[in-house]
């Protein structure tokens, strides 16, 4: 019952962009209020509204694509462009923090002792937990590729197994990194070393959590038969994001953990 002469998707009116904008307002103002007046009310409201917005917006996209069939080839192509552009923007986001790190570490100021690592900083041994973390993420890159091939080959059991393994590896990374943060001999307040280390690795860790969540949603969808062997873009987007997270870690490991130690 198509009244349109094109294959694109003219989306039905939706309240989620508005609730998302309101959530952004509550989060920003809420952060400022928290800093100055010690009240968490606005911030909490903003977080709840953000979570509700994300859940309902993406649920609607799944309904439109998987259940209603609106994701024709041109629509899917647009979604691919969108995800690639978003990941590119995230690359630039991390580039900023790498710039900050190299700015401070390539020409260490006299206040730091003119050296890098700065005087007094006990760095983490790059060949201990950080190396394990590297292995964990690289392995998760393999398992997510295994999951993709399983889906394309139509192997349900293997797809579920490999996707679950990928998510578990992601959780293991987060757990290990959490332990490292707890045990680290320096803090975020320890000069520019602490700032660059924790902001860069901290945002990376947040992206690992986001990526793991995205993959977990894909696992739920795979179990519920949403994906076909030809059409499973949600999974591909999650896999692209996961590979991006892995690559950022490799740059972090080489720059901050290894060269910077």
């Amino acid at each position: 019952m198509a009244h349109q002469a094109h294959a694109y998707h003219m989306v039905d009116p939706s309240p989620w962009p508005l609730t998302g904008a309101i959530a952004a307002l509550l989060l920003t103002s809420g952060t400022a209020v928290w800093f100055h007046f010690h009240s968490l009310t606005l911030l909490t409201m903003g977080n709840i509204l953000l979570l509700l917005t994300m859940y309902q917006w993406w649920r609607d996209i799944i309904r439109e694509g998987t259940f209603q069939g609106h994701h024709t080839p041109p629509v899917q192509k647009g979604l691919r462009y969108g995800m690639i552009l978003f990941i590119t923007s995230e690359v630039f986001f991390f580039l900023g923090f790498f710039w900050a790190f190299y700015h401070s570490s390539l020409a260490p100021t006299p206040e730091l002792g003119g050296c890098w690592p700065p005087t007094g900083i006990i760095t983490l041994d790059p060949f201990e937990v950080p190396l394990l973390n590297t292995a964990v993420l690289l392995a998760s890159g393999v398992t997510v590729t295994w999951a993709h091939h399983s889906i394309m080959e139509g192997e349900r059991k293997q797809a579920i197994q490999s996707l679950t393994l990928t998510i578990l590896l992601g959780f293991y990374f987060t757990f290990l990194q959490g332990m490292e943060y707890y045990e680290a001999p320096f803090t975020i307040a320890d000069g520019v070393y602490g700032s660059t280390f924790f902001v860069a690795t901290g945002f990376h860790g947040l992206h690992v959590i986001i990526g793991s969540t995205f993959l977990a949603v894909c696992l739920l969808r795979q179990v519920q038969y949403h994906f076909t062997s030809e059409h499973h873009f949600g999974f591909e987007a999650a896999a692209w994001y996961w590979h991006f997270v892995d690559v950022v870690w490799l740059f972090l490991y080489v720059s901050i953990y290894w060269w910077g130690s």
Partner: protein
Amino acid sequence: MADEGWWRVVFRPLIIHLCFRPEGEMAARLLLRSAVRAATTCRAAPVPALTRGMAVGGIPTDEEQATGLEKIVMKAAQQGADPYSMLKPKEYAGSKADPHLVPSITTKRIVGCVCEEDNTAVVWFWLHQGDAQRCPSCGSHYKLVPHELPH
């Protein structure tokens, strides 16, 4: 599938909890049964061999599960049709014998003629059904042809 022992014990209860479509497993068995029956009894009409899909590995194919506009586009493409003009338009000489054929869902459509390659001034005109019309600038022939939308 000899290696599924430990996997079944550890993951199956978890997956069943998460799985909201237990009838999917049932559907897979029924589909397999009917496919086997069709393959063995129905010799007159050739049955496509099932190499993938719900009955084989448990992941549906687009053939089995596509719906809505995606399914319409897929079915049309299998027949060689392009009802939603997703592909590049065909090329014509533009002469009286071989006019540009312009598909339209109504009785007229706007045409923009780029008479020569890299021209920046596009010549716009309405093309009506009936005899072929000529571009007022370069004289290329255009003919409106009816375009059927699936419905």
